[in-house]
């Protein structure tokens, strides 16, 4: 099949594009407030790099951006397989983009099988445009050709705007091995489609291949230009998403990189971990940079060793951090209890994934909140906070370290697989000395001071660090008195538990009431935590635009909870939590009020405030979409 036929195939369907207004050279330019584009290929074909580059370019154009990785289930899936698609999904907007959004508007696919995978997970919007590599039509392997044609026709029948593009052939005009360069050709097309400054594309290539020799850069720039021109010539549509260039420097990071930089910025020196998806990439990045600032990443033999290693390091010096995900978090329960009992500051980062057990290692869930709060035997009070944005990921670690050392407590940071792999630009943080941990105190302990001189009101006590003269004592996980001597008497046990519990209250007194998104009163309040923040607020915004009295409240502190939350909730007729964890659907036959299992945050709010907080949740391994939330809220308001 040759280009012309391709265009023949394409043009008529494209003319159908109503929103477009024709411009002089017969090319339609549609102005959009936002658009979601995907590029997907077999892994190894570079779709990921293409997507990331597009995101960076858009960000530099001043567009709002949210990119999400498309990751295959297997390490090295067979070529042209439905489950094997690898790539990137980029949501572009005029203003700031806070989440992955809804279904995809435009897809570039390198073969029809990976495309099928996307169709089947329901990622694509009905009738969306698909730019499809057409080479398979003429595949020497009749099976391939057949499957291509079959799939193509099905998609067309299903109403998708399929545009066949001979990318391979076009690239071969520029380079020998086309397979390698296709992604930059695609990038060129996208720069054209979205009216991006091509020069930015060239610079982006220069950045990414910076280390490689000039010729590599040159070839890729050629491909970029080729793609741009091809689109200019052959596609008769073009989009423009008005952008406001930010005046201050922005950083584009994914959540795990942000967490790692947070560790750096917090002044912590030891990170002990054991690999586990989706947390490991935090440690990957940290391993490459931590040593540059004198830090150490220790990969332990297992999670228990990682956590106790961190506990030992914290005990002897500055607060240390351990990073894990669900299964590893469960294994650390006993060690965390020791840190709580010994009042050893410790930061535990849990990048949540689908559970229970090994569950869905690469997929998002908010299933670990209850175990973060209640997950160790006996009374083991810990602080639990959850970042709601990529930016939060960075600052939450700094906050966690500070709280841990101020209150000698364990602080759990709950991120998740969605934040972990999503990229979003945010203002470049301005370094502040206040972020850093103070140097290790080695001064002499004044006579008479005891290692657990619990303040009768706040439960706080000064921490003794090895090396301090006059501070020698033996820390123990057994019940102990103020001298840290093992004590089995009722009073010692009670006062120790009281002190550790009251530290939570002391911290709670310092927290500010979170602000409501939307009006302070209304018909429905949506409460959420963690990575669903953006999607919830987007849904709320859209409903409010339609005249509904809906607001939302995002909680960063899950334990302790900030004051004033009940007053906020009382100003709304209904309150509901939206969470990415399990709750029984009251409509299910066997579920009734006596046995319905609620979502985590709903349980906490109901129990503390005795307000009839409803909940809706989803455990589909995918970020919850704004329009799903909108649909749910509308239903709930009908009732």
């Amino acid at each position, binding site marked *: 099949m040759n280009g012309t036929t391709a265009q023949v195939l394409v043009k008529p369907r494209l003319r159908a594009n109503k929103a477009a207004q024709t411009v002089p050279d017969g090319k339609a330019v549609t102005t959009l407030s936002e658009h979601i584009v995907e590029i997907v290929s077999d892994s190894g074909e570079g779709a990921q790099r293409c997507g990331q580059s597009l995101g960076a370019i858009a960000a530099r154009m001043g567009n709002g951006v949210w990119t999400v990785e498309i990751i295959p289930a297997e390490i090295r899936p067979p070529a042209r397989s439905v489950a094997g698609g690898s790539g990137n999904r980029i949501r572009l907007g005029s203003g700031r983009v806070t989440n992955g959004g809804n279904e995809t508007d435009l897809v570039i696919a390198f073969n029809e099988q990976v495309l099928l995978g996307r169709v089947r997970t329901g990622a694509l919007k009905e009738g969306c445009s698909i730019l499809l590599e057409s080479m398979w039509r003429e595949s020497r392997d009749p099976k391939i050709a057949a499957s291509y044609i079959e799939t193509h026709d099905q998609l067309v029948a299903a109403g998708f705007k399929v545009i066949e593009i001979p990318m391979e052939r076009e690239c071969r005009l520029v380079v020998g091995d086309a397979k390698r360069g296709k992604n930059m050709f695609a990038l060129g097309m996208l720069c054209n489609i979205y009216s991006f400054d091509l020069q930015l594309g060239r610079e982006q290539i220069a950045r990414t291949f910076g280390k490689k020799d000039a010729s590599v850069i040159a070839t890729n720039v050629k491909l970029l230009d080729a793609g741009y021109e091809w689109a200019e010539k052959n596609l008769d549509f073009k989009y423009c998403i008005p952008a406001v260039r930010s005046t201050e420097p922005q*950083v584009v990071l994914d959540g795990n990189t942000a967490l790692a930089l947070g560790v750096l910025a917090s002044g912590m020196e030891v990170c002990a971990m054991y690999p586990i998806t989706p947390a490991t990439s935090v440690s990957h990045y940290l391993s490459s*940079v931590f040593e540059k600032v004198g830090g150490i990443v220790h990969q332990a033999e297992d999670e228990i*060793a990682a956590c106790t*290693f961190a506990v030992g390091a914290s005990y002897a010096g500055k607060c240390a951090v351990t990073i894990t995900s669900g299964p590893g978090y469960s294994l650390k329960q006993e060690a965390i209890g020791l840190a709580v009992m010994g009042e050893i500051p410790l930061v535990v980062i849990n990048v949540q994934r689908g559970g229970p057990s090994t569950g869905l290692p690469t997929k998002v869930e908010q299933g670990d909140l209850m175990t973060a709060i209640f997950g160790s035997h006996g009374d083991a009070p810990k602080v639990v906070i959850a970042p709601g944005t990529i930016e939060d990921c960075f600052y939450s670690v700094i906050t966690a370290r500070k709280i841990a050392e101020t209150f000698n407590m364990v602080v759990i940071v709950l991120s998740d697989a969605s934040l972990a792999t999503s990229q979003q630009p945010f203002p470049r943080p301005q370094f502040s000395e206040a972020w850093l941990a103070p140097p290790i105190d080695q001064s002499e302990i004044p006579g008479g001071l005891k290692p657990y001189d619990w303040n009768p009101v706040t439960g706080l006590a000064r921490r003794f660090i*090895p090396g301090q003269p006059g501070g*020698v004592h033996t820390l123990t996980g*057994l019940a102990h008195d103020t001298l840290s001597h093992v004590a089995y008497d009722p009073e010692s046990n009670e006062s120790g538990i009281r002190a550790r519990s009251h530290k939570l209250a002391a911290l709670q007194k310092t927290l500010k009431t979170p602000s409501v998104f939307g009006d302070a009163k209304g018909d429905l309040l949506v409460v959420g935590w963690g990575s669903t923040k953006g999607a919830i607020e987007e849904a709320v915004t859209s409903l409010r635009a339609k005249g509904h009295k809906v607001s939302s409240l995002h909680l960063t502190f899950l334990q302790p909870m900030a004051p004033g939350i009940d007053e906020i909730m009382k100003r709304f007729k209904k309150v509901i939590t939206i969470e990415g964890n399990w709750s029984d659907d009251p409509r299910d036959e066997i579920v009734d009020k006596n046995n319905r299992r609620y979502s985590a945050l709903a349980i906490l709010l109901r129990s503390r405030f005795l307000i009839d907080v409803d909940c809706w949740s989803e455990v589909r391994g995918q970020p919850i979409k704004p329009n799903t939330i909108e649909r749910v809220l509308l239903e709930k308001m009908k009732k």
Partner: protein
Amino acid sequence: MTIHATECLLRMHDEHHALEDYQSGVPRWCTGCGDNAILAAVQRLCRDEDLRPEKTVFVSGIGCSSRFPHYMKTYGFHGIHGRALPVAEGIKMARPDLTVFVNTGDGDCCSIGAAHWIHAIRYNMNMTVMLHDNQIYGLTKMQASPTSPRGLKSNTTPRGSYLDGLQPLTVTLGVQNASFVAQAVDWIPEVLYDILLAAYRHKGFSFVRILQRCPEWLPKMLDPWVHDPLKTLLLTHEDGVTLSPNLSKVYKTQERHDPSNINRAREIASLADPIPVGILYRNPNVPCYEDLRNAGQQRSTRYIKSGLDAEFDKFTIWPQDADSKVQPSA
């Protein structure tokens, strides 16, 4: 373990210490418990090597033997069952300037802590580890431990334990990076002291298995060895321990063993009767993990800030970028 140069310098300004400076509280072990002998030897060691109490940490897990740190007037970490070693590693990594000892039981180290034990040997961090091997779970009232001899009647094996005892020495010698492996017994204090001293002075992970009597649950078990000196094989070598004339007269079963010979060490380790006592293996050339990781660097705020800025630069989009029309560096 050897002492850091910095330590030595600091030392010079130090007053010397007496035994009492390392003694804390009255040990609550049963009378006749071998742990008492180990405590005495260690307190003597601290005094003779003049360790600074505030720069010394004893780390333990849970068990009778793990009560050890409470009886030392130094810093102590009486943690959770089986995890003494990773805690000690964390301490050493964060603070290589501290002197670290570990006291662990046969259940604590060889059962629940076995994975950490294997890996601690690999890491070869500079610490002295005492395995208080009484071949029983003492604190929890007499259950068989991995090192219990086959047929031992205990509360969980009323008809006798089923398996031959695990031999901690052969296991340790099977692990890559083992750098110091010795065996001592609580009832020969002089040799116990010499071995602990050698262990302390070795730079690396010094593993000393100490056969420790538990009169409470196994009153007579070790008597044959306690009472018949010939059932003890004393390993002597100028690079190991050397015996005083008196001891030599009593303990006639001896072997001149070069601690650098690992194959022979493994054969000796397998001996059950007579039981070997002395230094089975030592290799001063195995690097320490904390040194490989450059632990204990000093870090200035500026140092951190510049590192952080350098990283941010990689991810930064500068406002002017979009306007700069420079050609790519091609």
